[in-house]
């Protein structure tokens, strides 16, 4: 009887992996179709013409900052020359204990202004507001510590323009990222409530004075593994979800939001570990429940670069935080699963996300124990076991290859050696690295309480980033 149970369980788990990879393959094919037209337009079109457009809506770039003294000035400088006709930069200093505020005041000649601040979204108390006197409009909101979401809300309160680009203080913006994402807004201003951008790992690339000079795939295995993960997410999955208006997450590192829509749902949820996914899902829910036409889109050619954790220790912390955010989101939005009111999000994307993202580490972990056990007790013969493992691994490699091919026309991995590194990573990621993340995600599932909403990435500052 026990042997029979183990056998059924073992086969079910391997079946789950096959199903999961088939689901991913289907989304990848869908993404490929969605990307085809965009790549043609990107190759031949002239999006930069919009730079001189008088009809482009102005944007507020909101940057939450906590202990960012090392790189905040270079970050703001690099952001201040992003290509766009009209924008302002709003930095929300979330009670930093280092010299973040002082560095900003000194670098941008800021002075304290006594202007009314509208708390459209409730936040921790604001101590003061500073404004710059230079050419670029810079506002700094100095507030009590309340976490990343709280700082973003304060920045959104202080923003003066109808669209807000929420990003991080440690990213490098591509010169055309704002214009490319705002193009999607202008396409349909009435309905577009959010536009997500393409996040790419910066590790291994050459950055000077806050600007990307050359992009490369990093040599370190931990960072390289994440490059592949980001490609699967941002190139092979999100365009597909976006094309059916069922994008479950606009990344916190780069998202353009319609300010009025964000205010309508109460802003980011303070204390949430996955505040970006939470806000995206609440926007979907709000518009679908109130039958308001809307769209949340993803633009793969709007690129920003961010340093991903280069060490196991930092990656572990990040993954526990991310998965805790997903756990919170699943807790809050479970009723949407298979509810027809929520359209394709409720019927396709969100159930898939819960099945193959949220539950994956548990099932995978059980699989690592049960399947070998099934072979050991003779419930499954070794030949069948090997073939099923090969199917699961083979489909995983297939999905990675599709993601690498889809990314090729964007031309970010220029050299053959960069592509070769990614190919090798696709072949070896299932031999230990991926399994590490499974353990960390289980830690988050069983209550590994990540109490800090700010990540603990060791900052080097965007001006100094480059692999040396």
């Amino acid at each position, binding site marked *: 009887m026990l042997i029979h149970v183990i056998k059924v369980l073992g086969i079910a788990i391997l079946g789950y992996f096959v199903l999961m990879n088939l689901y991913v393959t289907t989304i990848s094919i869908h993404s490929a179709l969605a990307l085809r*037209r965009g790549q*043609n*337009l990107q*190759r*031949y*079109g*002239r999006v930069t*013409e*919009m730079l*001189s*457009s*008088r*009809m*482009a809506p102005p944007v507020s770039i909101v940057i939450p900052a906590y202990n960012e003294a090392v790189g905040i000035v270079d970050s703001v400088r690099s952001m201040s020359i992003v290509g766009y006709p009209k924008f302002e930069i709003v930095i929300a200093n979330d009670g930093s204990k280092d010299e973040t505020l002082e560095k900003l005041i000194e670098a941008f000649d800021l002075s304290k*202004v*006594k*202007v*009314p*601040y*509208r*708390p459209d979204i409730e936040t921790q*108390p*604001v*101590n*003061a*507001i500073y404004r710059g006197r230079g050419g670029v409009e810079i506002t700094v909101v100095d507030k009590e510590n309340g976490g990343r979401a709280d700082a973003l809300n304060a920045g959104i309160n202080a923003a003066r323009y109808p669209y807000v680009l929420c990003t991080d203080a440690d990213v490098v913006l591509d010169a055309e990222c704002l214009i490319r994402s705002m*193009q999607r807004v*202008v*396409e*349909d*201003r*009435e309905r577009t409530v959010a536009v997500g951008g393409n996040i790419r790992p910066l590790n291994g690339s050459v950055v000077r004075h806050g600007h990307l000079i050359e992009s490369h795939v990093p040599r370190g295995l931990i960072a390289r593994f994440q490059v592949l993960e980001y490609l699967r997410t941002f190139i092979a999955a999100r365009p597909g979800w976006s094309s059916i208006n069922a994008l479950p997450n606009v990344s916190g590192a780069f998202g353009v939001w319609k300010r009025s829509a964000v205010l309508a749902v109460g802003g980011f949820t303070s204390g949430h570990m996955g505040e970006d996914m939470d806000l995206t899902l609440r926007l979907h829910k709000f518009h679908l429940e109130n039958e308001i036409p809307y769209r949340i889109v993803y633009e793969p050619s709007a690129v920003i670069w961010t340093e991903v954790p280069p060490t196991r220790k930092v990656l572990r912390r990040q993954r526990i935080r991310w998965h805790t955010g997903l756990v919170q989101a699943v807790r809050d939005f479970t009723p949407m699963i298979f509810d027809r009111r929520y359209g394709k999000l409720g019927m396709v994307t969100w159930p898939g996300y819960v099945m193959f993202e949220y539950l994956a580490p548990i099932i995978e972990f059980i699989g690592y124990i049960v399947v070998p056990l099934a072979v050991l007790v003779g419930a499954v013969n070794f*030949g*069948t076991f090997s*073939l*099923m493992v*090969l*199917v699961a691994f*083979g*489909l995983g*490699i*297939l999905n990675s*290859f*599709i993601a*690498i*091919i889809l990314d*090729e026309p964007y*031309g970010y991995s*220029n050299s*053959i050696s960069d*592509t070769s590194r990614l*190919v090798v990573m696709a072949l070896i990621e299932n031999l230990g690295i991926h399994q590490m993340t499974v353990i960390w995600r289980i830690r988050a599932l069983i209550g590994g309480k990540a109490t800090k909403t700010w990540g603990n990435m060791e900052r080097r500052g965007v001006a100094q980033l480059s692999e040396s």
Partner: protein
Amino acid sequence: MTGLEILRLTVILIFASNAVLLTVLLTYKGLNRRRTLAHARRRSAYIAVLSQHLSASGEGVRLGKRVAEDEAFLDAVIDLRTVLVGQEASEITDLVDRYGISEQQAAKLDDSRNVGQRLRAAVALAELADESAAHVLLDHLTDKEPEIRIQCARGLARMRWTPAIGVILKQLEHETPWVRSRFADSLITFGPSATWPLIAYIKSNHRLGNRGVPTAIRTLAAIGDPEAIGPTIEILDDANDIEIQLAAVETLGVLGVGPDIYPIEKAARSEDWRLRAKASKALSGINDEAILPTLAIGLHDINWWVRRNAAGALASTLQGREILYSTILGDDAHARDAAAEALADAGEVIAARERIANGLGATRDFDLIEYVEGRKVLTT
């Protein structure tokens, strides 16, 4: 076929697909890289040859007719056409004629089945701005691909082909907001020659629920032709549609309001807060005592934006600033905040501090400083 055999076959299929994908990836990578590098090299070489030709006043170029088929040559010509002006630009235009580049691209735009190639042709024609291609661009203003329509309008605007203005305007209503806004950019490129066609279009359509009208009105603002002020005031006075009213007030805010301020004052007392806010902004900088009562009412409006804009408009004149100073001593906390912010933005706080420091401070300077230093930043 047994289950095991099916499984074995699946494994073979998956790994065969992986092998195929890997081959595709490496081949694509290699070819793409080689093609890109070769294209860049040829483009640089063409630029060098064409520059030589220009420096030899049109006598230096020695290239066969077939170069016109080379994409790198087209890019080089476009590069130079974009940066050159005057005599050199007309020499490039001669080259475009001599090699039949416009005809070739026009044929591609007409006949190619590949949307990428057609877009490439439309962009090339827009960049070259060669009048011989005007009719082709005009025909493709109704192309099924939106980006091609945008490029055609842009090309026609760059060559100042004024007969296209009417066609672009006719299209405005049926376009998506994205294309509409890009068409508006093209109309702006036409400059003041588009002013009266726009006014005619707006006047004949603003009562018909035409979705292109608000864009057309805002285009007038961007063109900046003062001749549009009078007609825009008439449209504001006549329109019932709130979007049209908003666009008209916004445009007047940019162009100036002219002598007839009544329609704007009326808008400043509208039930719609957006209209009140935009009208208050439009009244900024008008040195006319008649508008002060309207703005003073706006200072106590229920809406923050209206208060802010009314205060900003009051701060733009000396008499208005007097009202703001007296508001600071009033009972309405929201109006006080708006007045203080506007005075701060107008540099009055710094000036008051300096006057006090120099022993020249008046009572109202002390009142202002006491107010801005004595209250919290946070207000609702």
